[in-house]
């Protein structure tokens, strides 16, 4: 603004010439008349105002000019002599009043007020007379809507960036956890596969020496042992694959009956182990919403365990049921078998942990880890209670499908992000 005044434009030589031909580049100021001042104020994008306090305590508008005043039809001609509460809606007047009162009490104020979705910065300044007494309040009002919106946008962006950062930190932690689980998994898998491999290697060596150093009877034993080891290895691999499938696939939610699913599993268990006859107790129906494959896998392992660990009981009994009066519903599988030491609770669901020697109860140590994974994929929780020789009860809950039942979910869980 000052630059134009100082622009070094060369003075134009006057036609008549002469020693006084050079004039100043700075234009003459002319006389500052009231109308000229008013014209300047009216051209400002803001409002310049003046108000006074009446004997009745009301704040009366005296002067209000500027583009903003014209836009709102609040020019001096329209507002002069009207009290504040006449000019603004009651809530706005209520907010403005204490600010203006403060200005009349001698304080310079600066605040933003909202009106009809737009934001106005008010800057009332006390005007004092010769005795220092506040005789009027004047100042300006500017439309700062864009500024306020920009500030809000910055706050929103900061908030979003913080959330994104938190999310990212969480994901990094999840990834580290998954990575650690994977390491433990591959370590234990290779470790556990080496046991049947040892047996296979040894018996194969025994069979290789058969005839010379090994009797027919020992050779037969070796062959049987080798076959056992191969079956065990196959079972291990099968169980690992099942666990991996439960971890990998997205649940397909559908309504189903827990008792029906259990009925199928029990039929298979009875075929595999007809003796001793295990009594199975269940209500007529337990309707649930879940993924049939995952729930079946969980049930097969829970009921399979119940079958296995109760087979030495006097009257083996396995019960499937629902704990009354719990929300979300708590289901259970209970047996009257060997039970477990509550101190072993933390090891129960851990991969490849086995509480019983293979000689007593066969198993791969994958079953309950699979149960936990399946139930967790279904949004539920699984836990157990038991005591040595007093049976075991496994409890589980089921979560809710993320959308309507039967709606397949996207393969990857998409994070809700701003489009664009």
């Amino acid at each position, binding site marked *: 603004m000052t630059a134009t005044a100082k622009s070094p434009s060369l003075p134009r030589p006057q036609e008549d010439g002469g020693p006084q031909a050079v004039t100043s580049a700075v234009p003459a100021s002319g006389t500052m008349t009231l109308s000229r001042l008013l014209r300047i104020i009216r051209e400002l994008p803001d409002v310049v105002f003046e108000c006074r306090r009446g004997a009745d305590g009301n704040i009366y508008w005296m002067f209000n000019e500027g583009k903003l005043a014209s836009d709102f039809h609040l020019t001096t001609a329209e507002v002069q002599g009207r009290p504040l509460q006449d000019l603004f809606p009651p809530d706005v007047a209520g907010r403005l009043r204490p600010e203006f009162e403060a200005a009349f009490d001698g304080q310079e104020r600066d605040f933003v007020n909202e009106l009809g979705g737009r934001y106005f910065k008010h800057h009332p300044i006390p005007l004092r007379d010769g005795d220092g007494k506040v005789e009027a309040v004047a100042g300006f009002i500017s439309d700062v809507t864009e500024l306020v919106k920009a500030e809000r946008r910055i706050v929103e962006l900061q908030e979003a960036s913080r959330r994104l950062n938190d999310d990212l930190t969480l994901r990094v932690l999840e990834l580290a956890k998954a990575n650690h689980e994977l390491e433990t998994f591959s*370590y234990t898998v*290779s*470790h*556990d596969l*080496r*046991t049947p*491999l*040892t*047996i*296979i*290697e*040894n*018996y*194969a*060596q*025994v069979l*290789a*020496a058969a005839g010379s*150093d*090994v009797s027919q009877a*020992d050779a037969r*034993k*070796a062959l049987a*042992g080798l076959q*056992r*080891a191969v079956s065990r290895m196959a079972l291990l691999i099968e169980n690992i694959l099942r666990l991996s499938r439960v971890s990998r696939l997205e649940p397909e939610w559908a309504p189903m009956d827990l008792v029906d699913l259990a009925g199928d599993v029990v039929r298979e268990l009875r075929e595999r182990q007809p003796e001793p006859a295990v009594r199975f107790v269940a209500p007529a129906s337990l309707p649930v919403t879940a993924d049939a494959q995952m729930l079946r896998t969980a049930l097969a392992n829970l009921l399979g365990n119940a079958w296995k660990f109760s087979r030495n009981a006097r009257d083996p009994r396995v019960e499937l049921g629902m704990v009354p009066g719990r929300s979300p519903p708590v289901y259970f599988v209970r047996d009257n078998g060997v039970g477990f030491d509550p101190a072993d609770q933390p090891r129960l669901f851990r991969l490849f942990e086995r509480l019983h*020697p*293979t*000689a007593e109860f066969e198993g791969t140590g994958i079953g309950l880890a699979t149960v936990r994974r399946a139930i967790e994929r279904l949004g539920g929780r699984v836990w157990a209670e038991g005591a040595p020789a007093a049976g075991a009860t496994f409890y589980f809950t089921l979560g809710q499908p993320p959308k309507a039942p039967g709606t397949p979910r996207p393969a990857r869980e998409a994070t809700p992000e701003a489009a664009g």
Partner: protein
Amino acid sequence: MSAVRVAVCDDEVDVLHSTQMVLQINGFEVTPISDARALLETLRRVKPQLLLQDVYMPGLKLQEAIGAIRADPALLGLKILVFTASAEGAEICRKYHADGYLRKPFDAARIRQTLEGFLKPAVSAGR
């Protein structure tokens, strides 16, 4: 010369029996131990030259077991080999002050040389 006596302690029945058979074919005299609680008592009775000891067994605290063996004058000179499927055999061996380790599965065809290597006096071990 009488056969070298080896004790194998492992709760996996088939691991125990198959290892026993392989060692017997190779001319060792084998005492299988499936219950860790019977370990010390059996060792004192049989007095083997070598023990193949599984790491994770119900009722076994490896640190205590090896400590008890080392403290027992009747078991002086017994070589303890950790018998493990773990890739960290050397670390387990150091941690529990064993004399060595044998990883599962082991090379059954060469087991005689492997075990004899452990039984040799320390001076000639580094050939």
